[in-house]
């Protein structure tokens, strides 16, 4: 199973059948056979709830996974513009050190905790250069640090500040500046705006977009906020239970979601301005990945589940209903199992085949 992006696009990162396990008495299979391609300069959104494996995936891709986590199988291939492809799992020691942050950088979750509270912003930014550009002289390092802060709209006087003296939004900007330091090809962002107020979040997103236009790096943007991803990503992967269950262009997903989980997730966000519709969320809770179910991980919460779902793990197949770009891991889209295609209600984007009444207080009824 491969997941090629549009033919002819310039791929910077290919992930193939990647599985990650957290070892222990009950090993947790946090990521199970994930594949995707990241095109140069694109924004790939990865959506999913807590425990779906999205952060683990980010750590595996950046080679930042720590024991007991380990890559159990699969491959992460980095394709530089100026050289042969590199298999990240083969990198060790100096080669790995040279790769990390130079090629793939990361913006971590929780701006509050990712910075060292006892070091000034200057020390933390300069650290990147000391480690990766040892040839720079002190004055040059200082200049680069100033440039970096300027890049994200922070005045140079903040170099001497400590993290606690900065607002949440500013700390997040410092983290983004740090990721930009070595002009990477790929920036992995793990919930970069989750803890921020909407207005600040919007500012940070604009900033990221501006920097991306300027430097041309690709972004893997990980968040639980599907409505945000639909807006900012070129392509989108929805994860559930350690797997990608739906993958496609964000615009296509927006018009037609295929996997029942994606459909349910989309129905979990009330529209800010649109019509008031009946919304339900998804009953139940995610699976325990130390005992992954034999079949589809979503079966227990899925209103469309049938017998086969309990024992057949669906492959990520082209969902023929819209076009060639969307793929869904759901037996309803497997022509071998369901030659007639998905049920009408699912096709129409309804999560609940039998919806109940809308909230009574809604302004629509007044």
């Amino acid at each position: 199973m491969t997941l090629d992006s549009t033919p002819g696009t310039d791929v910077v990162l290919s992930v193939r059948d990647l599985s990650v396990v957290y070892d222990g008495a009950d090993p947790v299979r946090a990521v199970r056979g994930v594949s995707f391609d990241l095109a140069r300069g694109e924004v790939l959104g990865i959506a999913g709830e807590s425990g779906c494996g999205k952060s683990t995936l980010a750590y595996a891709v950046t080679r930042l996974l720590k024991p007991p986590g380990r890559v159990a199988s699969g491959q992460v291939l980095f394709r530089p513009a100026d050289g042969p492809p590199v298999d990240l799992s083969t990198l060790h020691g100096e080669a790995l050190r040279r790769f990390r942050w130079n090629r793939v950088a990361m913006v971590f979750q929780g701006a509050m905790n990712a910075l060292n509270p006892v070091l000034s912003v200057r020390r933390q930014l300069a650290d990147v250069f000391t480690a990766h550009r040892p040839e720079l002289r002190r004055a040059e390092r200082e200049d680069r640090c100033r440039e970096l802060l300027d890049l994200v709209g922070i005045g140079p006087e903040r170099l001497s500040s400590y993290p606690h003296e900065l607002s949440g939004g500013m700390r997040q900007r410092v983290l983004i500046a740090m990721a930009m330091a070595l002009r990477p090809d790929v920036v992995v962002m793990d919930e970069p705006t989750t803890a921020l107020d909407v207005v600040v979040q919007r500012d940070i997103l604009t900033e990221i977009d501006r920097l991306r236009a300027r430097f041309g790096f690709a972004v893997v943007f990980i968040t639980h906020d599907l409505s945000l991803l639909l807006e900012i990503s070129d392509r989108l992967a929805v994860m559930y239970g350690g797997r990608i269950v739906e993958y496609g262009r964000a615009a296509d997903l927006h018009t037609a979601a295929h996997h029942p989980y994606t459909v349910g997730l989309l129905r979990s966000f009330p529209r800010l301005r649109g019509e008031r519709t009946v919304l339900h969320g998804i009953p139940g809770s995610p699976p325990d990945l130390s005992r992954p179910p034999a079949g589809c991980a979503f079966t227990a919460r899925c209103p469309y589940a049938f017998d086969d779902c309990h024992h057949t793990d669906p492959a990520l197949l082209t969902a023929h209903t819209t076009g060639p770009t969307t793929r869904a891991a759901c037996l309803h889209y497997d022509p071998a199992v369901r030659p007639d295609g998905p049920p009408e209600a699912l096709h129409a984007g309804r999560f609940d085949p039998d919806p109940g009444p809308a909230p009574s207080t809604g302004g629509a009824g007044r």
Partner: protein
Amino acid sequence: MSILTVSHLSKHFPLRDGRHRRTLRAVDDVSFELRSGQTVALVGESGSGKSTIARMLVRLTRPTAGEIRLDGTPVATGRRAVRRYRRDVQMVFQDPFASLNPAHTVEYHLRRPLRLHGVASGTADVRAAVHDLLTRVNLTPADQVARRLPHELSGGQRQRVAIARALAPRPRILLADEPVSMLDVSIRLEILNLVDRLKREEELAVLYVTHDLATARYFASSIMVLYRGQVVESGPSDEVILRPAHPYTQLLASAAPDPGSPRTAAPGGMRALRGGQQPATGSGGCLFRDRCPAAMDVCRTEVPEFPVAAGHMARCWLRQP
């Protein structure tokens, strides 16, 4: 028909800033009403004072000024009076991981308010009441859930326990302070739908404190927008969200993700605050004027509430008739 009336509520915190003394006006002259069977949303960014308002309403924080009346009666002071008041006014907190005691079972958490407020007494009565509460919040089989410890429950289940606990004294007013912001997206609507159903079935008056405009519009009949302790706009939900009158509400609405409809650009020149400090705007005058692209000289003077439409007001000089 119960009414909680809040008039001119203020909370000022003294700040010591080196040798200077300043006052943080966390909540400044806020007035509103909560009525049975209605949800009012209190919307604002972090630090806007929305949690402080909720805490004052449930008497966890003492107001600096202003009055809270329940069915026309001012809330008295003293332990007994406060306990009596809390029978009627209950709160659901933001973090279900912190609001339940990890050492006690679900049953213990529900038994206490039942006994304390004299809703049930005697082992059999209390057990039946616990069972009933758990069933009402869809935690079934209730007998099994009752024996569990918080760590054995998911976040959504824990929040249901917190809601059941708030319902235990049979309150008439329910204050929900960001009840779903710590939960997974797919779980959130279920919890909010539950609160909505309980509101209808039990004629509760609900205050929904949130930073999320979309769920505020979806679940509340009216919305109050809070900015630095002041209500800058209030009115029917659709009015406030679809036709925001205050530049701050416009900014909030334009910043919220909404893939469902085209983005209305934020009014020119508006931006989030850079830096950790509040702007230097002193008391008096519009608190938003430092960020507002439409700021005028008159904004330095105290802004009254101007009517925008029926039941819809904005605290902005642009709306001066």
